[in-house]
């Protein structure tokens, strides 16, 4: 058992990542933060529109697209990978719609059938072509955020900038943030009141498909770092945590970015201490933050609820 949980060495766990090993762990923390922040911003709108599980469906169904793109193009270039993932995502949406509208199977089951089938095909292809595909089951499940610093660094005009995937994720994050600022009002209105949005000249269908497109771009860029399943947590946890603390959307956005930063840092230390995979550790840290918010939230926290309930009798009922 003492092998299982390594001793807590302050220098190894807390100091070294920021000093001697910073060249290595700096990129990992940055990547974790960028993934969490970009996903968090998109996820806030998924939460508002009650589409949280679309993230689940999209992240699972892009896998076969990625694998087939790898197999056909023999490279992990951004272009083919993205096209493959996009095609798989669109296919999943079509299958869901087809099953849901043409049969009496309900939407939830249709989603389950479509993404599990596509995911199964993807896993099978990775298992068959392990040697040719630069993806394996581990990467699909836990992500390979630890390998980020090992990537060849991208260079621009003679400057060494950093690992390509971190730069790409940074670009995606900035793009998502820019979209969130530019279309702030449209997104807000169409999430809460489709009728009002239409009267203001915002087409809800366009907003929906735009959101889905951005979602799939974010999911695909984050895929190598955090895999297919953890990305769901990256989408939902930041917004869910901060929406327990505030109701104002700008504050929820800011809180989501803060949550992403905190869970990247805390998760890094947790993962180094326990010597486990780093991406899951970041999600566990994020889940820990959610639990904390759930307990101490000033309006609907467990402590507040428990206090309210403490004076037993009819007063407790009327207080609710």
């Amino acid at each position, binding site marked *: 058992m003492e*092998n*299982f*949980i390594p001793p807590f060495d302050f220098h190894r766990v807390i100091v070294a990542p920021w000093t001697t090993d910073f060249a290595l762990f700096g990129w990992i923390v940055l990547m974790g933060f960028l993934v969490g922040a970009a996903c968090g911003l998109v996820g806030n709108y998924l*939460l508002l529109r*009650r*589409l*949280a*599980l679309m*993230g*689940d469906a999209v992240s699972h169904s892009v896998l076969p697209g990625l694998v087939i793109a790898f197999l056909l193009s023999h490279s992990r270039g951004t272009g083919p990978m993205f096209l493959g993932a996009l095609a798989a995502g669109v296919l999943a949406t079509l299958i869901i719609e087809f*099953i849901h509208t*043409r*049969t*009496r*199977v*309900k939407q*939830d*089951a249709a*989603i*389950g*059938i479509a993404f*599990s*089938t596509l*995911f*199964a*095909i993807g*896993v*099978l292809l990775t*298992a*068959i072509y392990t040697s040719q595909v630069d993806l394996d*089951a581990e990467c699909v*499940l*836990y992500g390979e955020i630890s390998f980020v610093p090992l990537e060849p660094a991208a260079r621009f005009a003679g400057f060494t900038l950093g690992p390509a995937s971190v730069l790409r994720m940074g670009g995606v994050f900035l793009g998502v943030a820019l979209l969130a600022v530019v279309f702030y009002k449209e997104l807000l209105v169409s999430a809460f009141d489709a009728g009002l949005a239409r009267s203001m000249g915002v087409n809800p269908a366009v907003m929906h498909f735009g959101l889905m497109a951005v979602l799939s771009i974010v999911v695909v860029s984050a895929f190598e770092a955090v895999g297919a*399943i*953890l*990305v*769901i*947590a*990256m*989408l*939902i*946890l930041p917004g*869910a945590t901060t*929406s*327990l603390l505030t109701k104002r959307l700008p504050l929820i956005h800011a809180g989501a970015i803060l949550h992403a930063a905190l869970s990247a840092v805390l998760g890094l230390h947790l*993962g180094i201490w*326990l*010597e*486990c*995979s780093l*991406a*899951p550790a970041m*999600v*566990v840290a994020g*889940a820990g933050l*959610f639990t904390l918010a*759930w307990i101490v*939230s000033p309006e*609907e926290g*467990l402590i507040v609820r428990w206090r309210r309930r403490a004076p037993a009798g009819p007063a407790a009922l009327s207080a609710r």
Partner: protein
Amino acid sequence: MTKIAAITFLFLAGAAGLHAARVSDVSSTDWTGQAARFLSLRDPAVRYAAGGAVLMGVCCGVLGGFVVVRKMALMGDTLSHAVLPGVALGFLWNLSKDPVAVFIGATAAGLLGTSLVRAITHTTRLKEDAALGLVLASFFALGACLVTMIQRLPTGNKSGVDKFLFGQAAAITAGDIGLMLAVTALVLGLVFLFYKELLVVSFDGGFARASGLPVVWLDRGLMLLLAFSVVIALQAVGAVLVSAMLITPAAAAYLLTDRLHRLLALAAAFGVAAGVVGAFFSFLGHNLPTGPLMVIGASTVFTGAFLLGPRHGVIARWWRRRDRAARTRRENTLKSLYRVCEEREFAGEGVSLTELARLRRETIEDAQRLGDELARHGLATRTDGMIYFTPSGRQRAAEIVRNHRLWELYLTNSANIAADHVHEDAEKIEHVLGEEVVRELERRLNYAERDPHGRHIPSVADIHRSAGLSGEARPR
């Protein structure tokens, strides 16, 4: 269902006690040889793998039926991911695959996950979808941390904990089979005993509560059984895809039947088929993960039901639609023939193709084709260039015309729609009005004889007479 379980039990009882060789120990490269070895069930390991697949299919299929009709598919997904940390803790118990420890750990984790979903939705503003996704991914992350920690241990990599992610039926042992058998028996027994209660709760919660059923306890019991069946399916399908074995076979069965007991039996049969096919291909293809293969098998079954289902299937519905369209086309032809006869006040027999074509504004070839179609269905006879009603054809034609004109009159008289706006609607309804509705319409319209355009509405007597007369006066 019980028959399947009994048969499984019999052939597994013969297998028990033999020392298991892993399927992975066997390294024959010959496809047909491998297939023959799987089908003959000579190897104990093959028997365990197949038996495990069968039990998994029965259990997941039966409970999946409830998942699909109660719209709990996403809850099943969350449950299946949430068991992972429990599996890892079960492994840690003595650092080996102890079926009972894994079972207890996984069930506890799954139930904890589903109760957390309920707690989050009850105590916060977060909606169910958010709570489901949150618990699913957080528990999975916790499990992933624990699994990577176990794999770091000296014995960890050999422990086979990774087999619980995508499934490996070949790793099923006699101990697993014992546990699976016990759980399957429990599931089938409880579903059988509480069938009526579960039925009522699944389809009408309000009625169930009103009639004093312990709804909360039934729900909790179902969730417990669901957790059990997810856990025993883990070894074969893996935590990531086990929800598909709950959803897909049952959804396929849902396309084929309306009765719950048939749905459960069919879902179990589909689950068994998918499981065995998955185990078979995994055995052929050098121990590919069984989970994805089983899921693809289940999806194939679903696609089959989706296309070929006799009532809800795409092909059947396409056929029915085509059938209906053909009948409508024939009836429209009959109506045109009737109109031609009516224009010359029923003088003379038969209608020439040119007259029909002119009325319908079509080519002679089209008119000819329509006439042939009527002849094939015994509604008319064809000679060169002429069409003659048969008695049944003439009767049906009069009926359609009557339906059309009655409906036009009804719309103008009772619904106050202008006379020039009623034709389109009558064009559609004339094909579906039944005798009883026609009687009612006639009564309400006081057996009117003229439609809004002043044309004669054939009465019952007219229709019968016309059928009889034209029968007598039929040429030849």
